[in-house]
């Protein structure tokens, strides 16, 4: 019996020893991440049969078990993945915000504000070289800041690729560790033991892997786990796969694969998911927005600058910054459509106005070139430029368009009003002038025009062969027929067309100049009364335009006297102004109350002055002049890079044109070329608050604020989500710690409770023993 007691005692001691070792192990690992508290499970030792009696053998320690809630553990793994993604995303977005969200002097908003401030200052003294340098420097600083941001974004992309590779390497290392533990755990547990610590290590490795990439864990019956990433096996009970990062050559997107040639994996969670999202979504989006911003900034400034004129006056030579490209692969440059010639900006249909200035006299001729985006080729555009008197155009061997004036001629693309619009002298000019209403004219076969000049009467017949369509003859065709007639020439007459009207004039000026329209069957079609005597004048009415047209649409305005009389003398003499559609724009009293030379204010910023002289409604006096809202409706100048302020078409390449940087006098501050002209600066200043169509109707400043605000908003959203997710993870970890974590105080209390319970039992049993002894004594 004594040996049985000794056996029971030994078993008890061994059990106590297991308990103590477990508690000691718990205390030692109290700070080990991922450690799960362990407990000893004990049971009654199997008894043995002693002469028919089953004798108990005390207690034995069966198994040391981890205290773990696998469901909770799986939630922590998932949460870790989500939080890993958010943490990495927040860090990356914060870095992006530091690039685009700078509010200091070196940020885009400050640089843009400085440029507008300098433009404003320069507009008060546009010839000041220091102020010009300031504007050019500010523009260069703005371009440089955008270049720097674009460079930082590109660098961040490279860094992110490096970080992604490092994260994938770390994930592969963790996968190998899990695979190693997968091999060891079944070995130990197959022998009937519990591999608690190895399981804890594996749980910790799985959690660390989850922080890198979203995964699923499936436990196998013999203690190994399968780890699935994006539906593909990364770790199986016997094998470990390897993640690889590649760049898709077709899309440029970052691809995560299971092995170098394995299936692609859509990683959405963890640090790796966040980095891929940054590479494939955030960075390209931000780079795209920056490029769009820089592109529109360049386009809007260039739209104004290309149609401006520097203080030095009209150009004699301009070379395009952007070359034409052989986009149709014909082997030749020039046969491409101008809208598809590989230029960095779109060319649309519309009109381009070209001013050619005779430098000696200052006489300006405004010409309009129509471009149809779907039809006009580069060669046709060049031909149209080249056909303008005094102007030449060609492509250089590299495809750059060169525009240059004939000797003594300059040119520009300004929308300015023609300061001397009546070069032809159709509005009170000195020559005897007859103007018809605007054509076309419905002539018939055999129609004639009968005139009488200094050499006597003569008649001109119109033949159908001279007209494209006799019933709709144009003023140009009629003028050509008249000028070809020998009698017409001999009588000193000349015909021309203006604004669709036929103009017949004497070559000389003065009151002695005269001719008569005697008759002819063509008169009804021409709108001229038979017997009209046309006389010249000794004094010419000098018409002058000034101001900047501010109307929304380009067109041709026409001045027509409403009676015959002398400017500034004839009571009630009035002139009406009609727009291109024949609608009345204004009626001006230029009679007795008007002082010749005074400016008359017309709508939309146009001002007119008339000198003294005679106007005649009966002789068809008129004056047609162009009002130009946009001298380049097609953006062809900005696309070609002719007289641009900014070169480049994205945030990386944006720059101030080199020759303007070197010589700020080339800044096109005006519209007329005079040194004090700041009208183009004012047009550029309007950009400060103008809506830009390419930026969703925002102004430049508003759009950039929105761009940087979007990043800040993303950060704010990511922060909120991360905080919420972090709280959830903390709550899960608290629950895990309560269940699985080691509390040293609790472990000591457990020990004290054990000791006290045994002490109490021991003490009480001594009392019981006394009672039993007393009882046995009386038996």
């Amino acid at each position, binding site marked *: 019996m004594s040996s049985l*007691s000794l056996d*029971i*005692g030994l078993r*008890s*001691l061994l*059990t*106590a*020893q297991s*308990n*103590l070792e477990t*508690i*000691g192990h718990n*205390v030692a690992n109290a700070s080990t991440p991922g450690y799960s508290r362990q407990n*000893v499970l*004990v*049971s*009654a030792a199997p008894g043995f049969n002693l002469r028919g009696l089953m004798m*108990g053998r*005390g*207690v034995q320690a069966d198994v040391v078990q981890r205290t773990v809630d696998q469901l909770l553990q799986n939630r922590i793994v998932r949460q870790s993945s989500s939080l890993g993604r958010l943490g990495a995303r927040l860090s990356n977005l914060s870095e992006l915000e530091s690039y685009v969200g700078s509010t200091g002097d070196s940020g885009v908003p400050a640089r843009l504000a400085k440029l507008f401030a300098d433009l404003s200052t320069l507009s008060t003294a546009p010839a000041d070289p220091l102020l010009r340098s300031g504007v050019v420097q500010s523009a260069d600083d703005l371009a440089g800041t955008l270049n720097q941001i674009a460079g930082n974004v590109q660098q961040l992309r490279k860094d992110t690729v490096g970080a992604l590779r490092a994260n994938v390497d770390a994930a592969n290392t963790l996968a190998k560790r899990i695979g190693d533990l997968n091999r060891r755990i079944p070995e130990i547990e197959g022998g009937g033991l519990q591999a608690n610590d190895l399981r804890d290590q594996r749980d910790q490795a799985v959690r660390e892997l989850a922080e890198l990439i979203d995964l699923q864990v499936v436990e196998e019956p013999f203690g190994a786990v399968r780890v699935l990433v994006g539906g593909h096996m990364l770790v199986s009970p016997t094998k470990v796969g390897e993640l690889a990062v590649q760049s898709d050559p077709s899309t440029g997107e970052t691809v995560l694969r299971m092995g170098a040639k394995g299936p692609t994996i859509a990683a959405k969670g963890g640090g790796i998911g966040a980095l891929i999202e940054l590479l494939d979504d955030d960075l390209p989006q931000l780079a795209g927005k920056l490029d769009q911003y820089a592109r529109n900034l360049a386009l809007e400034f260039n739209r104004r600058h290309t149609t401006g004129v520097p203080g030095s006056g009209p150009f004699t030579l301009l070379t395009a910054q952007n070359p034409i490209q052989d986009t149709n692969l014909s082997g030749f440059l020039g046969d491409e459509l101008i809208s598809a010639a590989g230029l960095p900006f779109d060319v649309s249909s519309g009109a381009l106005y070209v001013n050619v200035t005779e430098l000696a006299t200052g006489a300006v001729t405004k010409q309009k070139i129509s471009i149809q985006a779907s039809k006009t080729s580069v060669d046709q555009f060049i031909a149209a430029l080249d056909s303008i008197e005094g102007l030449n155009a060609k492509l250089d061997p590299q495809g750059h368009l060169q525009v240059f004036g004939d000797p003594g001629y300059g040119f520009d693309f300004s929308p300015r009003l023609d300061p001397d619009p009546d070069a032809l002298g159709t509005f009170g000019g000195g020559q005897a002038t007859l103007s018809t209403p605007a054509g076309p004219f419905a002539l018939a076969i055999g129609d004639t025009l009968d005139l009488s000049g200094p050499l006597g009467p003569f008649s001109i017949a119109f033949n159908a062969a001279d007209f494209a369509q006799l019933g709709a003859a144009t003023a140009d065709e009629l003028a050509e027929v008249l000028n070809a007639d020998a009698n017409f020439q001999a009588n000193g007459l000349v015909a021309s067309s203006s604004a669709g009207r036929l103009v017949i004039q004497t070559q000389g000026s003065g009151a002695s100049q005269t001719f008569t329209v005697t008759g002819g069957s063509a008169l009804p079609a021409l709108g001229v009364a038979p017997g009209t005597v046309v006389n010249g004048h000794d004094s010419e009415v000098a018409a002058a335009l000034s101001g900047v047209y501010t109307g929304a649409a380009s067109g041709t305005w026409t001045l027509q006297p409403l009676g015959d009389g002398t400017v500034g003398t004839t009571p009630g003499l009035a002139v009406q102004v009609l727009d291109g559609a024949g609608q009345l724009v204004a009626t001006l009293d230029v009679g007795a109350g008007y002082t010749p030379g005074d400016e008359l204010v017309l709508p939309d910023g146009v001002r007119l002055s008339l000198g003294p002289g005679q106007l005649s409604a009966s002789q068809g006096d008129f004056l047609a002049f162009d009002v130009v809202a946009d001298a380049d409706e097609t953006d062809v100048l900005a696309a070609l890079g002719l007289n641009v302020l900014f070169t480049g078409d994205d945030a990386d390449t944006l720059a101030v044109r080199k020759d303007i940087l070197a010589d700020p006098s080339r800044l096109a501050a005006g519209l007329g070329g005079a040194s004090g002209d700041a009208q183009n600066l004012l047009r550029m200043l309007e950009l400060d608050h103008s809506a830009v169509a390419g930026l969703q109707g925002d102004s430049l400043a508003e759009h950039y604020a929105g761009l940087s605000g979007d990043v800040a908003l993303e950060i704010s959203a990511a922060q909120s989500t991360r905080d919420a997710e972090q709280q959830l993870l903390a709550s899960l970890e608290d629950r895990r710690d309560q269940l699985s974590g080691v509390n*040293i105080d609790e472990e*000591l209390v*457990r*020990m*004290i*409770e*054990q*000791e*006290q*319970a*045994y*002490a*109490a*039992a*021991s003490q*009480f*049993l*001594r*009392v*019981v*023993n006394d*009672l*039993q002894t*007393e*009882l*046995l*004594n*009386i*038996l």
Partner: protein
Amino acid sequence: MSDVRATLRQLEGCVQEEIGAQGRAAERLEAQAEALRTGDPAALAASTLELERELAAAPARAERRAALVRALAARWSVDPRSLRLSSIALRAGDEGRRLERLREDLRGATARAARAMRRNALVARLHQRAWSEVLEGALATVAGDEALPGGQLVDAEA
């Protein structure tokens, strides 16, 4: 004689009550033995408390039994300390046969309880000694590893 018979019947009642109490004590001790085996301090404390409740009535029963023995000793003019249940049954002759059977039953019940008690006492003592030693060691380790919350007092003059 009728007084002796009546006292004997009362004594038989006491012994029967004691047999029942010993049986219950043995059951409690077996529950305690189970708690000792599992090492669950709460279960051990609970089983010990149950045992304590069961044995709380033991002194009263012992007093009643002693009073009856003293009464019989007076009738037989003997020293009460010389009387055992076996000698009382012998003196009572035929009247004592029933008491003798009850005495045998009580002996068996008490022996069963005593065996359980001794086994439990041994295990409890061993556990208690082991836990005491480890607890002392653990407390010393914890106290030595960590700085006191308020730092350690040092001699300001030093």
